[in-house]
């Protein structure tokens, strides 16, 4: 303990805040990741099945959704964060803290999930879908019994990438008072020249990212045949 105090005095002093920051980051990522999946996966599926020559081909819906997704994906997160402040305030009632950060995170990551899921599902052999059609499966049946089953490893991987980038985004969200490790590193570390705080916060983020990535890869391996 004495040794820790010597190496990183500020971290020890701010320990309760650090723990809270960790919790906030995890909570932010968990909530926004969950909601982004709920929005993004169906969106990705829709983008795939409405493509030309696919199950439920619909050029209008496809290009409409595609454009929305592209718009949100092309905005840098910092800009998005400030641009949607009115929306954030309308939905969450506030633009700061955990609540205020979650809304822009969802806006940023849902289109990301959608595109990742789309690309995962496009990897499925069209022949398998054709075989299901030939067996008399309905488009809806094909979506949940073929696309989502065959595409599961790809979807899991897509979510892994999303979570990793959400951790990065959440640090940015911290700069506008969203809380979490990014906020902690900047407010208590960077702005006070407390290098030890920044280093520890960074290491924790690094560990979380690696754990998520490792878990994702493990699941991918386990689910693929």
């Amino acid at each position, binding site marked *: 303990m004495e040794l820790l105090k010597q190496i990183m005095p500020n971290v020890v002093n701010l320990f309760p805040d650090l723990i809270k920051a960790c919790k906030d980051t995890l909570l932010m990522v968990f909530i926004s990741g969950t909601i982004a999946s709920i929005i993004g996966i169906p969106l990705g599926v829709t983008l795939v099945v409405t493509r030309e020559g696919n199950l439920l081909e619909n050029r209008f819906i496809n290009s409409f959704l595609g454009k929305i997704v592209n718009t949100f994906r092309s905005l840098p997160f910092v800009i998005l964060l400030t641009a949607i402040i009115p929306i954030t305030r309308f939905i969450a009632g506030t633009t700061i803290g955990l609540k205020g950060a979650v809304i822009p995170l969802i806006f940023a990551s849902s289109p990301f999930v959608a595109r990742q899921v789309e690309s995962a599902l496009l990897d499925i052999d069209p022949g398998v879908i054709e*075989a299901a059609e030939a067996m008399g499966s309905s488009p809806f049946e094909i979506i949940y019994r073929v696309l989502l089953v*065959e595409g599961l490893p790809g979807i899991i991987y897509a979510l892994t990438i999303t979570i990793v980038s959400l951790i990065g985004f959440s640090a940015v969200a911290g700069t506008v008072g969203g809380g979490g490790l990014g906020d902690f590193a900047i407010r208590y570390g960077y702005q006070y020249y407390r290098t030890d705080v920044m280093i520890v916060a960074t290491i924790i983020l690094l560990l979380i990212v690696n754990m998520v990535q490792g878990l994702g890869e493990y699941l991918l391996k386990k689910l693929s045949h």
Partner: protein
Amino acid sequence: MIVLKNLTKTYQSKKLTVGALKQVSLTIEKGDIFGIIGYSGAGKSTLIRCINLLERPDSGNVIINGVDLTKLSPVELRRQREKIGMIFQHFNLMKRRNVFENVAYPLKGKGLTKTEINDRVLKLLELVGIRDKVYSYPSQLSGGQKQRVAIARALANDPEVLLCDEATSALDPQNTKSILNLLKEINQKLNLTVVIITHQMEVIKEVCNKVAVMEEGVVVEEGSIIDIFSSPTTKISKEFVAHTMGYENFEKILNQGFIRDPLKYELTARITFVGQIAGQAFISKISIEYGIYANILFGSIESLQGIPFGSLIVSFTGNSLKIKEAIGFLEENNVRVEVLKEHGATKTDNAQCS
């Protein structure tokens, strides 16, 4: 019974319009193993995919057992599709489902209990001969085994028709043979109508009782397998038969000219025997009775639908009138003779006069 009426299908790209099917009509009887052969791009794949409307023809009707599939609603069409099994060149099994789950796929949601599905799947796997692979994943199976799983899956709903889209094209010769034997076996056991698309005449020869030859979106020739083999009329059918019987290079060699006596009359002909007459000694007989020489250049015998089918290429020399008489005798005895080349003294003399 499958009746295809005036099917037309055109593919349009920006610059090109390709007529994949041009007014194709076919009738396939119940219990047939019907082969459709053609080179790639002939439209045969489009045709078979029109039978279960995976591909919708621009015009024409697909009538299976009296039901016109082109007039059905999507829901009714899906119900009909359950009665039409299909297997593919690349098997199209689901990678994340094991053999059992792949075969069970079409059985789910039909109100069957778990035990019923279980029994049915195991019975199907028994039928196709891979009962021991129940819990394997497709990636652990060989091509032939994968196709067996695909066949079991296609048969799950007791179909009346089985469509095979180049089902053996990705297999080695041995697996091709065993899959074809399996198709023949289930055709007989289940009284299933089988439609086979292929570019390999060997496949047709092995299992089909009827064949249609396709070229550029048109069925150019159609008939029983014996008819097509013994008297192909179109150039493409002749090519396929020549390839299968092994004499495809023969005409090239014939035209190169081999050593022969330019003063003597010589006639080269292909002689085809079908059935029991293949066992008779026709060549010796005409050689002795007509006093002509017969030089056998090529010979092969195949079994089509269990009927012996022999093909000889013979070069006759001697008196031209006697040779013509001998050919007449062969034709009277239902031996088919096709003159490939004729040359010799009389003909050359005539040519010089004129």
